[in-house]
């Protein structure tokens, strides 16, 4: 599991992506270059419709770049290899129990061995889902569901987590605590994560670095190392630097959004 290579976990190298439809073509990203180092938590923000989700699809290998390269540990990304994708809604399958949901990635990858299963369920146990394994997802609260979704994402031991606004479907109260929750689990498991969001404060509260994208075609307009260290989201929100970063990012977003 321990990789000695210095190559970043994820690298976007001068990526262009063009969508083709009958109505025409749209360039969603151009000259998109950045990298994510091992153990880093990166947040990507940008004006709405700038192609944040496209970026995740590229990182997951679900879309192939029209030009340039997306690499994971130095090799071109391949779908289903090493990434865990977490969506806005938990997308737990209602006909499966929490346990069956959590081991789903193992089934897909053909790794549903007793050891792997045990490890995944230990993870669930560790993060307080032990009592709910035999329950249906409908019996869980919104926060617990999202936690189950995260454990499912971690089940196949991905090297990179891709988070697509994973809190935005929750109400504000739940959102703050789930944000803390997810942050703590990702840190505790020493995972590398790439989060896209439209919520500036969310980005500041979890990330080591924030990338600001331009309007379409997306390109990295700015990158900021926040310097909060391992402070948890709720602490960061109380920090004086939080408001300053908010101002900086807000202005960059709005300055770039309306040319």
């Amino acid at each position, binding site marked *: 599991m321990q990789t000695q290579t210095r190559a970043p976990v994820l690298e976007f190298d001068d990526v262009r992506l063009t969508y083709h439809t009958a109505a025409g073509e749209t360039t969603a990203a151009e000259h998109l270059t950045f990298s994510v180092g091992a153990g880093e938590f990166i947040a990507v923000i940008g004006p709405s419709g700038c192609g944040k989700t496209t970026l995740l699809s590229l990182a997951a290998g679900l879309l192939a770049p029209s030009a340039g390269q997306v690499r994971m540990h130095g090799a071109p990304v391949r779908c289903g290899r090493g990434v865990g994708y977490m969506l806005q809604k938990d997308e737990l399958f209602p006909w499966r129990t929490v346990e069956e949901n959590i081991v789903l990635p193992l089934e897909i*990858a053909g790794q549903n061995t007793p050891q792997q299963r045990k490890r995944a369920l230990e993870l669930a146990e560790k993060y307080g889902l032990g009592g709910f394994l035999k329950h249906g997802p409908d019996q869980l609260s919104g926060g617990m569901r999202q936690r189950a979704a995260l454990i499912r994402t971690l089940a196949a031991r991905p090297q990179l987590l891709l988070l697509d606004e994973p809190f935005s479907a929750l109400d504000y109260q739940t959102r703050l605590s789930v944000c803390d929750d997810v942050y703590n689990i990702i840190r505790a498991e020493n995972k590398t994560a790439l989060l896209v969001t439209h919520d500036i404060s969310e980005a500041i509260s979890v990330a080591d670095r924030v990338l600001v994208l331009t309007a379409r075609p997306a390109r990295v307009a700015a990158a900021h190392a926040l310097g909060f260290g391992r402070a948890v989201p709720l602490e960061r929100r109380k920090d004086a630097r939080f408001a300053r970063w908010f101002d900086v990012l807000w202005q960059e977003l709005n300055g770039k959004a309306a040319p």
Partner: protein
Amino acid sequence: MKNKTDGAGVPAAACSPEHALYLKKRRREGLLVQIARFSLLVALFGAWELVAAVKLVDPFIISSPSRIAVQIAALAADGSLFYHIGVTLWETLAGFAIAVALGTGTALLLWWSERLRRVLEPYIVVLNSLPKIALGPVIIIWFGTGSAAIVFITVLIGVIIATMQMLGGFLATDKNKILLLRSMGANKRQILQKLVLPSALPQFVGMLKICVGMAWIGSIMGEYIVSKAGLGYLIVYGGQVFKLDLVMAATVILCALAAGMYALVALAERLLVRR
């Protein structure tokens, strides 16, 4: 929030008087509906019997419940009742099963291949709008006048709607869940197996319900066109020789069978779609 599950007749342990009253009201309302249902049936049959008995309308034309009962008893006595029921039931069930299997299979193929779906789309639309009964003469020539022809008509009537229902269900699969599975590296077969099929289960049961109705239409209509036996045959034959008792008796039995089959599907629904 702490609603106990109703229906199971939860013993009134530790519930407030207010809740007890509510439960009592509910029970009473349920009972009332049951009584009303039954009374309506009795009233209808009673009125029918009465109209026939006082010769307000000639029972030769409208028959009557008592004459129907006599007719059914007579059919049962000479054994032909069960023969005719058996024939129709077999045709209906065979047609139903084949239509469901074929329809689901076709829908799977069409889900799998978008190209095939696009190629076949106009054919399906035309077949769906075509009154299948128009194919009657062709079917008689191809399949003869036995049960095979009737099963074929039944399949024909059910299969298109079954295909369209199931395809609709398969195509309505949550796009985000598909995305999730693809990000895990799932192939098409896995997406089908883990997601598309289980999520289309309610659609499948809905399709079964529709196909039950379609199968009865198919088998009875088929028997109208070609047959030597069956409930549809009895109805047509009774009509031709002006034996309204026979027509009505066969119709009543048909009602009972159709209701029974629907009840079975409803039971299957309760067993299948639990979560």
